[in-house]
């Protein structure tokens, strides 16, 4: 048993729903009790979908358990096929149905249905949402794809976009445009908007674009084995990654496509003098592995930030993220425990968090600005405007998104100079954020008293030094506190005075 307050990922059958809901003509018959239908609202409310997810829940109750839940499953399955006339169905169990061991796959097979039946084995007590999506998409591809002749023109499939994905809708459009400019057709996008017959013709493409490894890596590997379709390994999020992706595609196809990058503004915006204030901003990254990996590179190489820590919640990618952290000289945090992420952020005191909606909450509590780079998604992650993450426009969107929560260039200096102005002061936060500005960390009362510190590395702030620290603007105060304490510990200083504070400042000033 493990106590969980908030979760980054849902159960694996929700991953399967993300695939089923993204597709057309596929229906999911889910053996599940009443209440599991809550998952529908993720799609209809958060993503504002205008159709119910194509899922039939068998809705068994306690009184059915002693008798015949298998019969209930078969009836629900037959009803769903009669009513919705899908081209194919996937069948599986939610966590409770897994315990009663009805074997939906086996039951559906005995029904002699005329359409393909794809059984799913998603172990609810071991795995999570991303695994569920990856495994479901793989099974759909394995059951429905067929060998077919390659297209005359060079083409590819874009694999990975699902329902409830972080900006998947717009990424598809941006990437399709980029590939078009490189002379490459898109054969099929899947699972997003694909039908089972579209899946059957995946094999016609010359290669696959693995857009989100979390949801399509198993399928990409299968297609490579079965139909000799190579797949791209670079996810084109960020300027450098997009250029690498273009080079990778050119190498795969033998073409020399050079898409128009005249709309790409991130490099100039980042070079322009207004961005000087971004230099060395200490950022912490957390999210799914793909977005963290891409964002770390953008943060360091394209924005000039300093990456002080990074991590992901999907353990499947722990090895990749550990390797990445090593490159950046930081520790990797691989966890799905929200409280552990919060503790790490509190410890590292970054000036900015690049995280998920959960870290936005942490940021709000600690007074640290936060931009969202990854799922889990929130209704705000489905903006009405075009807002991709991949390609050149994606880079522009990311620049704007990341700069927005920060105090802007000259404002930073003004806060230093006139920190006591009654309207334009420190505790008010960035002036363009109004009432929603984060409150400085110092203002947050401790929730539980820490155990009395002891040992040689404990330092105490003298009252005067503490007051002096408060004069430092909130957005660098965490850094100053941390540096001073580190400096004091290194020198065996037990009490921090105003002098210690400024000695530390001089020490770290470069």
């Amino acid at each position, binding site marked *: 048993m493990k106590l969980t307050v908030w979760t980054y990922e849902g159960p694996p059958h929700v991953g399967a729903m993300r695939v089923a809901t993204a597709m057309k003509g596929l229906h999911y018959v889910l053996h599940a009790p009443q209440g599991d239908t809550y998952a529908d609202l993720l799609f209809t*409310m958060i993503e504002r979908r205008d159709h119910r997810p194509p899922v039939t829940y068998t809705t068994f109750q*306690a009184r059915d358990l002693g008798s015949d839940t298998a019969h209930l499953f078969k009836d629900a399955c037959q009803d769903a096929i009669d009513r919705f006339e899908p081209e194919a169905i996937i069948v599986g169990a939610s966590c409770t149905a897994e315990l009663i061991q009805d074997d939906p796959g086996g039951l559906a097979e005995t029904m002699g249905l005329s359409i393909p039946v794809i059984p799913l084995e998603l172990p609810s007590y071991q795995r999570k949402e991303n695994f569920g999506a990856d495994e479901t998409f793989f099974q759909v591809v394995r059951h429905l794809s067929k060998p077919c002749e390659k297209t005359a023109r060079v083409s590819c499939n874009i694999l990975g976009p699902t329902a409830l994905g972080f900006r998947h809708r717009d990424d598809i459009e941006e990437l399709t445009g980029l590939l078009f400019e490189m002379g490459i057709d898109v054969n099929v996008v899947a699972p997003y908007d694909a039908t089972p017959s579209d899946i059957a013709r995946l094999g016609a493409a010359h290669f696959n674009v693995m857009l989100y490894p979390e949801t399509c890596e198993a399928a990409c590997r299968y297609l490579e084995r079965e139909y000799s379709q190579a797949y791209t390994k670079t996810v084109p999020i960020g300027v450098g990654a997009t250029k690498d992706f273009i080079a990778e595609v050119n190498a795969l196809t033998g073409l020399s496509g050079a898409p128009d990058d005249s709309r790409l503004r991130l490099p100039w915006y980042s070079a322009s003098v207004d961005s000087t204030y971004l230099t060395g901003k200490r950022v912490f990254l957390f999210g799914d592995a793909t977005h963290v990996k891409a964002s770390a590179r953008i943060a360091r190489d394209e924005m000039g930030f300093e990456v002080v820590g990074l991590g992901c919640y999907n353990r499947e990618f722990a090895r990749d993220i550990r390797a990445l952290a090593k490159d950046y000289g930081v520790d990797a945090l691989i966890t799905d425990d929200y409280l552990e992420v919060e503790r790490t952020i509190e410890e590292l005191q970054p000036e900015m968090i690049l995280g998920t909606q959960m870290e936005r909450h942490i940021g709000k509590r600690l007074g640290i600005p936060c931009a969202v780079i990854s799922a889990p998604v929130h209704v705000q992650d489905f903006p009405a405007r075009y807002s991709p993450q991949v390609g050149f426009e994606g880079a522009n969107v990311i620049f704007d998104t990341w700069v927005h929560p920060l105090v802007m260039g000259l404002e930073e200096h003004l806060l230093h100079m006139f920190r006591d102005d009654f309207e334009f002061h420190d505790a008010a936060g960035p002036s363009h954020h109004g009432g929603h500005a984060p409150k400085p960390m110092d203002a947050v009362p401790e929730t539980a008293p820490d155990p009395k510190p002891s040992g040689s590395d404990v330092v105490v702030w003298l009252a005067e030094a503490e007051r002096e620290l408060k004069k430092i603007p909130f957005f660098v105060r965490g850094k100053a506190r941390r540096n001073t304490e580190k400096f004091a510990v290194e020198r065996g200083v037990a009490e921090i005075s105003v002098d210690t504070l400024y000695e530390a400042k001089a020490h770290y000033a470069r």
Partner: protein
Amino acid sequence: MNKSTPITNGSCIDAPILKERGQREVFCGLTGIIWLHRKMQDAFFLVVGSRTCAHLLQSAAGVMIFAEPRFGTAILEEKDLAGLADAHDELDREVERLLARRPDIKQLFLVGSCPSEVIKIDLSRAAERLTQLHAPHVRVLNYSGSGIETTFTQGEDACLEAMVPVLPETDAANLVLVGALPDVLEDQALGLLRDMGIEGISVLPAGRADAMPAIGKNTKFALLQPFLGETAAALTRRGASHIPAPFPFGEEGTTLWLRTIADNFGVDAETFDRVTAAPRARARKAIAAQAAELNGKSIFFFPDSQLELPLARFLTRECGMTAIEVGAPYIHKGVVGPDMELLQTGTVSEGQDVDKQLERCRAARPDLTVCGLGLANPLEAEGLSTKWAIELVFTPVHFYEQAGDLAGLFSRPIRRKDKLELAKS
């Protein structure tokens, strides 16, 4: 306008009920934790369940609400199921950890879920053991919010029912109001009843563990919500007597609810009128402002919170609407009977087969459909106006001063559709 065909004159109490069985588009009882944990400020709700339960709790309100939660899920893992770990040892450890981190907790609810019920983890035994272990600081109780046994608001019923046996005993002739309402509503109800001269009123659940009501054979209780049938039965078993009344929605409902209580406590008509006259007039005025948009319009209820029948009574009798179908997860006539006596409607349905019900709804083309969050946007996309049912549980809607707001919840979607030029194309 849609014409409904009333089956009886003026009452649906004896009308046949359409009972359905099939896919249900409703929450399970765990969802009640979302409001219960805000109401009982020194309580913590620990669900013993799966990742699905945890995911439901954080998604149930439609978006993630990041307040400091006083609930969590002890997620069962492979080793718990395979019998490699003793579920009770594991639970003791997690509770120990939790109580160490949150010394402010005075009441801990172990909440059963579908998986914990199926593998038969005995939470009542665990609650007994943990109560002894952590006495006198923490009282540990248990109830089930599982989807195989409870529907949405039944979770609150199960929670309050679990509290009844441990309420203190009394011989006093007291009045207990039952149901978790926002403080502002509670204060209004208490104020009105006290002004009538009724003394010794308390509320279940109270905001804190040390303020829970006492119960005895002279206790009378009134329900604040129509989904508390099991709690009512448990209170009756302890000797208390139920005051059945229409629920206090709208001016008429509030008046009937108050009057039934007043009659039970010997309040004279003059006092009653003096106390209620002004708020009644305000309520009527506030409803009239909204009812203009609702008058003559038709409404269709999908089953959700069990508030459906009392709300249909309010909307048909005070706002001039016509009810085409009123669906409820289940119907307990001992509780909603007084509302049904007053309600004239088309179909009354119990349980759900969602696809069949959707067919009926599409055929009827109601002016307003009350349904869960999973159905609302899809129906809007088909051109139907909808009202999210869950908002009725999360918004203060009881008693006189909220009667206008309650009507407003239903008139707003209609008014909005009317305002948007875009939606008309």
